């Protein structure tokens, strides 16, 4: 019940945020704008709209995660409003989880709205709704949640600027981890392998959650690809939330 109250409160707080509204309007405009851009693609409008639409969803989701996710923690800590919540009979892990789930709910609404915009653009072009995009959209949402969790994790111990840099770095490394793996395998005799291997195993492999190209082009996927990716993403997410809760639990709020 206490957790639910925190979730609802965070949802109400974030859904009213003007930055969120601006980003959402911009994302939906961009998705609809791809209708015009697609016209220059020699008959490839359908593909261009879907690719740009899914990318817009992912990039603007990242921006929302960065701005709102960081603000959520930093504002509470800097304005000392966290004292009010902490003085109530709630566990600190409940605060972390409540805030995360509240923002997760807001992001779900955003992703749903962007999906509707994308389907609308696709319907105008192809005359039907492409349900095959759904697995990619689910994994984009999962990726955004992981980035939110990282933003909250970094914000629980670093300054806002550093937390933003760390979050963006995690996103970049998450998409480059496959490259690190290939590099280590291609050049086994070069130095710093322990470091690259370490990064590969610790950083989230966000490319595992990237089905954008596969769904748009109808590529054959290995069996249970979505299930494996979802299990990987959810487990990773739980780990980060656990780490955030631990750091927050030990944080001196005085």
């Amino acid at each position: 019940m206490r957790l639910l109250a925190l979730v609802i409160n965070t949802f109400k707080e974030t859904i009213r945020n003007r930055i969120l509204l601006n980003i959402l309007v911009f994302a939906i405009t961009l998705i609809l704008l791809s209708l015009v851009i697609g016209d220059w693609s020699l008959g490839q409008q359908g593909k261009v709209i879907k690719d740009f639409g899914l990318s817009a969803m992912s990039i603007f989701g990242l921006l929302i995660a960065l701005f709102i996710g960081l603000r959520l923690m930093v504002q509470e800590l800097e304005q000392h409003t966290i004292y009010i919540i902490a003085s109530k009979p709630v566990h600190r892990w409940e605060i972390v989880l409540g805030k995360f789930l509240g923002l997760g709910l807001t992001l779900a609404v955003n992703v749903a709205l962007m999906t509707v915009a994308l389907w609308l653009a696709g319907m105008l072009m192809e005359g039907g709704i492409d349900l095959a995009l759904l697995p990619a959209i689910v994994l984009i949402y999962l990726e955004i949640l992981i980035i939110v969790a990282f933003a909250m994790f970094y914000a629980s111990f670093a300054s806002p600027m550093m937390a933003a840099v760390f979050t963006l770095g995690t996103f970049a490394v998450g998409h480059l981890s496959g490259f690190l793996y290939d590099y280590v395998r291609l050049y086994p005799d070069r130095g710093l392998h322990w470091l690259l291997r370490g990064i590969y195993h610790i950083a989230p492999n966000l490319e595992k959650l990237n089905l954008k190209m596969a769904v748009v082009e109808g590529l054959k996927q290995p069996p249970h690809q979505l299930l494996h990716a979802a299990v990987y993403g959810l487990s990773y997410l739980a780990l980060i939330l656990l780490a955030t809760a631990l750091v927050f639990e030990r944080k001196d709020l005085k």
Partner: protein
Amino acid sequence: MGLLLLSLVLVVAVSRSQRAMDMHRHITFEDRSPQFLPNGKALTWMSLGHRASLADALWIKSVLYYGRRVIDEDNPYYAYQAKRSVDDASRRDNAHITFLPDTVPGMDSALLPVLFRMGGRGLVNDIYPLLDRVTTLDPHFIMPYVFGGVSVLMDTGELDKAESLLQKGRKANPEEWRFPFYLGWLSWMYRGDARAAHQLMIAALPLKGCPPFVADLIEGLSGKLNRKALTIRYLEGMLESTESPEIREQLAAVVAQLRKSE
């Protein structure tokens, strides 16, 4: 009142300074060379998970680059600037052009001006490097391969580059019938190698989506049709299998011209 006056002065200042700057602005037709773009593999990593969108963006850039220089010749702005930007030296340097119509055995001279316009020679030297990047970023994007392998080839005669682009597409999409089909077209029309074309057609036939006219072509390549009739049948097949309205229009015009000369 003072504020209104100040706003008015500022609006006039903005407008006048912009006009002054426009008067000194030279209209230039400048496409940044893809030589300055990282290669496809590096772009793949740099796209941070958005490789298909980056491929689309580069594809649109390729279409605009090509269209402005080759197709859109009636546009006085682009035609003038594009022609001007290609200096005599680059027109003389045709080392990259590997196809010469008079070297093809059995080539009907009546087909030459219709099939090989070559109007884009030296005008679009950057198109293949661009298409290479597009197809490395998104190896399953079929259209750029077909565009580079057929349309661009007809305009530039860069046979080796067109063939290698189609080979790249075939390697990445072994189940796509269009690659052996178009490679067959190249072998037959540009290399004059009916035997290789025949083998490629046979390879295309069992692949998913291969239309029935390919079987007719195999029969034609066995020597039962004359070159012009076979060309028409081939082009009609291409017309049938191409989604792009622009390429369809281009092919339809060629077929109509060939039929007229029959």
